[in-house]
Structure formats: structure tokens, C-alpha cells
């Protein structure tokens, strides 16, 4: 397969569910040595590297007690049953709408949203075993 034809352009983010956000934040900042991108009450984002098309490659930690963000996005897996919150894969901005239609056409329940502070558009959908996937693209106009 020609690499340029791949819809997925890179690993955008891995997000894990944590019990003790402060302790985990400290570990990933001080032990693993990652740069904090944003810390909020219930989550912290670390920048791992420059990513595809203006996006940063991130590691995110989400407080397991805060369900608001992905409440209805992961089907089939109880939040207590996995430390994986979701995985984000980079797609190109020009493929965003066609990918949304393609996934919906396959019968997947797709949740489209934007994250203003990251300047990204996202599609969330579950894999067959209930892991939450995100197709994400950087979009400068999302503010």
C-alpha cells in the first residue's frame, strides 16, 4: 500500500484512565519527563512530540471519576474494566467529512466534536470490542 494513501497518518494520542491524577501527573512529568500541555481539574495533557499536520502527539491522563468527557462514547467496556480511555489517530483535514460519512455508512455510531483549545476536529467511534477510537485532525479555524 502506498503510504501516502493511508487514511491514518499517525498516532495522535493515547489517553489513559487514572485513579490518582496528582500522583500520575507527577510520574509522567518527572519520571517519564514529558512536557505539560494543559492541566485541569480532571485531566492533564502532555506533549510527547510534534505530530501530523500541526497536531501535537499527546499523552493524556483522565481522572477515572470524571465521566463527563467520554460518558456516551465507549460502548461495551465499563470504565472500571480498562485503563485505556481512548486512542487518537491522525487523519487529514480534507478527509475529515468523507471519513465521517464512510464510518457512518458502515453503521458505526460516530460522535463528531471539536476541541477548541487543541484546535482540532474529532470523530469518536467504538471498535468491535468497545475501545474508544478518535479520528482527529488539526484545524486552525477551530478556536
Amino acid at each position, binding site marked *: 500500500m502506498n503510504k501516502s494513501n493511508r487514511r491514518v497518518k499517525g498516532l495522535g494520542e493515547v489517553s489513559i484512565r487514572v485513579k490518582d491524577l496528582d500522583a500520575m501527573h507527577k510520574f509522567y512529568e518527572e519520571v517519564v519527563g514529558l512536557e505539560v500541555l494543559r492541566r485541569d481539574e480532571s485531566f492533564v495533557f502532555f506533549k510527547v512530540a510534534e505530530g501530523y499536520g500541526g497536531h501535537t502527539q499527546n499523552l493524556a491522563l483522565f481522572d477515572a471519576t470524571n465521566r463527563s468527557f467520554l460518558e456516551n462514547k465507549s460502548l461495551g467496556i465499563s470504565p472500571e474494566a*480498562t485503563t485505556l480511555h481512548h486512542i487518537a489517530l491522525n487523519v487529514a483535514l480534507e478527509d475529515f467529512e468523507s471519513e465521517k460519512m464512510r464510518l457512518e455508512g458502515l453503521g458505526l455510531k460516530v460522535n463528531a466534536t471539536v476541541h477548541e483549545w487543541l484546535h482540532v476536529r474529532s470523530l469518536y467511534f467504538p471498535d468491535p470490542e468497545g475501545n474508544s477510537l478518535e479520528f482527529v485532525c488539526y484545524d486552525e479555524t477551530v478556536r
Partner: protein
Amino acid sequence: MNKSNQSVKGIAEISLRVHDLDLMRRFYEQVIGLEVLRENKHKHSEGKAIFYAVGAGDENLALFEEKLIDWYTRDKSPQIDPKLTTLSHFAFSIALDDFESEKKRLEGIGIEIVHSGTSSWMHSRMFYFFDPEGNLIEFKSHDESVGRGEE
């Protein structure tokens, strides 16, 4: 830019622990459109791991069948029952130059390196440790000298 002293250069791999490999591989190949890099049958265990190329770089997404038993599925993780998470492990890439010093640094602050190894087909070396909540982390460096002339 990264922090100037940041050893971690990128996310190299995310591995999922999967129950129904046929179902999951169809999805990741046909729906997500990922290209198979390698299928690994294990020498001492039933079960298989499939590695997919993601993007233009060295990044992988991998599916590890849950019946695949290896060191990482034994009782190494103190807090997480391996059956209770779909995350097998994830890998950060680090520079080969930093490989030994990072290992020493982590050991020096009391982190147990639970496994070290090389992958001939990936031409890389890696070591593993747990975060405070039991997620398995891999530090991995590309090393062309690993696996040369083999296979």
C-alpha cells in the same frame, strides 16, 4: 518543541489486548485501513500478535490476543489484573544514545525495569516498566544493528 531535556521523542506503539482477533483485525484492516507490518506467532504460547503501520513513520498499533501468554501477561502488574484492561502496553520512542542512561536513571529513582529485550524484525531494543497505577510502559530505540543478518 519538546522540553530540551525531554528524552521521549514520540509515541512509538499502542498495543491493545483483544479477545476476538479475527473480528478485531477485520475492523482495523478494513475499517481503519491499517497495513499489516507483521504477524507474530509465539513460540511457547497459543495466540498471536499483529502489528500495523500507522502513518509514515515507525509508529505501530498492535493487537495482542489475550490468550497469548508471555512475560507481560504474568503477574507483573501489581494493580491491574491483565484481564481487566484492554491496554496491553504503550511505547515511547527514545534516542539510542539515551537508551542506557535512561535505564540507569529510572533504576536510580527506584523504578523496576521488569523486562528488557530486542526485536530483530523491528531493529530495535526496548525495556519495560510500570507506571504507579500498573500500566506497562515501553521505552524503545531504533537500532539498525539489532537483527541484521537474521531471518
